[in-house]
């Protein structure tokens, strides 16, 4: 009985501020909300139908995919490489490990603004270097070019996200029993074979879990793009969360915004479910 009492405050909190909003999001997505009069009208699935006809939908979806694939590829590549390095017990490694973890706590707003400062067309250091080697015309910022802006926000997101991947891989590496390596060496394995047949197999489980978590958090990550480009230039970095935000807070189309949000949530749920089924089959 004591257990229930201890948990009760949490249950009440989660019910009021998580469960209820979920239901409310579904309700909102079926409504048309008149911003001026605050009146609502039930419109059924009209918001979803409008989304399917919206010419913006495929563009935003493509941006979302580019953003996600680019961010995840960079984060996992750097994360795994860094983890293998910091796992070596060399002098100074503790300090390096600490430095590599810093992005984990740096405020996104700070990341966004020093990124914009580095990329400033007139005074930014990175822009200057790109201009010096003629990749960019004088006084141009990469953020003013559609592809440049997308690459820039992806790099910023890799900067922020790879430490999480690194530290998770590092934890998994720490958990590999030394005997497995010894056994491999007894069997005459070289460094590459040790990596291929001992290290990699031990990282599969963590990769599976981390992939789906990072995927969900990357697809839905709003702050960094919003604070660097606001979705621009010309919608080039507008991914799904920014679209949701614009419709809801920019145009006050709460019903349409909710429909977009639910679509994203459902897409992620379906993807996660498929992913778990398939990855379970894979291990069998």
């Amino acid at each position: 009985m004591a257990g229930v009492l201890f948990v009760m405050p949490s249950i009440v909190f989660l019910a009021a501020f998580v469960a209820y909003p979920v239901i409310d999001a579904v309700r909102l997505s079926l409504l048309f909300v008149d911003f001026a009069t605050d009146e609502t009208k039930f419109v059924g699935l009209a918001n979803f139908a409008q989304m399917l006809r919206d010419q913006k939908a495929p563009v935003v979806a493509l941006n979302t995919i580019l953003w996600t694939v680019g961010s995840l590829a960079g984060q996992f590549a750097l994360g795994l490489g860094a983890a293998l390095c910091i796992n070596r017990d060399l002098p100074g490694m503790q300090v390096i490990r600490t430095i590599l973890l810093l992005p984990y706590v740096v405020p996104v707003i700070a990341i966004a603004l020093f990124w914009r400062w580095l990329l400033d067309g007139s005074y930014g250091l990175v822009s200057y270097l790109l201009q010096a080697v003629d990749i960019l015309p004088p006084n141009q910022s990469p953020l003013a070019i559609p592809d440049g802006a997308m690459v820039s926000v992806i790099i910023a997101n890799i900067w922020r996200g790879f430490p999480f991947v690194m530290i998770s891989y590092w934890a998994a590496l720490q958990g590999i029993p030394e005997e497995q390596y010894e056994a491999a060496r007894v069997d005459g394995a070289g460094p590459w074979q040790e990596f291929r047949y001992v290290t990699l197999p031990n990282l599969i489980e963590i990769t599976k879990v981390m992939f789906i978590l990072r995927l969900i958090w990357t697809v839905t990550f709003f702050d960094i793009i919003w604070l660097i480009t606001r979705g621009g230039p010309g919608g080039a970095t507008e991914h799904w969360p920014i679209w949701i935000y614009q419709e809801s807070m920019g145009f006050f189309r709460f019903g349409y915004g909710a429909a977009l949000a639910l679509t994203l949530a459902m897409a992620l749920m379906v993807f996660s479910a498929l992913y778990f089924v398939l990855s379970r089959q894979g291990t069998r």
Partner: protein
Amino acid sequence: MTARSLLSRLTVYAVTLLLAAFIGFPLLWMLISSFKPSAQLFVSPPRLLPTEFTLDWYRNLVHQSDAPTFFWNSLVVGMATTAICLVLGTLAGYAVTRFEFPGKGIFLVSALLSYVFPAIVLFVPIYMIINSLGLTDTLLGIVICHTILTFPFALWMLRSFFAAIPREIDEAAWVDGASFLRAFATIILPLALPGIFSVGVFVFVLSWNEYLFASVLVTSNAHKTIPLGIAEFITSFDVRWGEIMAMGTLATVPVIVLFLSVQRYFLRGVLSGAVKG
């Protein structure tokens, strides 16, 4: 040392130093820029190291902007969020590792789901709840939102800390005649304190850094948190880079210091698989 292991050591150092530069350079650049006088800040090509330093940008922040208010608000919101999260999370985290009760499985699954659930999907309904409670543009409204964001994470991390404390310790206390609450407060809580402290730090950092909910809820300068305050410097008519770099530095230093103080526990939390990115 063989030539091969020397080579592999060099490779490891080269890769990590490159990554450390990738991470460290932008942070250092922000710091350096915040001390550059405008004659050296706004030049092309950019100067790597300034020949003179200035505190003007910091002075401007203190005397000519609402920055002190933003810092105070972030501090209040962060501490209140941390307090609420820790009270709720400690009680629940302890209970789920010690007791069986109906609905425990469902509770844990729903906490896990809300841990994964993205804020961007729910921010409008949550905004509406806060609005109907009359709490828009108040610090309490932000505190509620930040608790929503951080509580599931706090619960999962606290659960792993309580799970690491053997049940036998509670049972011994109960046998000696201590009540549940007494055993919890006098024996278990002190044992779990380092873990609770580090969770508290992370909740505080997440709250300190949060932008989306605060931006939706707050309209008046008197209630803005740091991220909102800085964002204002960027979107305003002229971009005031000096003040922005100073404010970014001031916003970043406290969380880095906090992080360094609990790094040990953070790594333990990672090893138990309960960390949010």
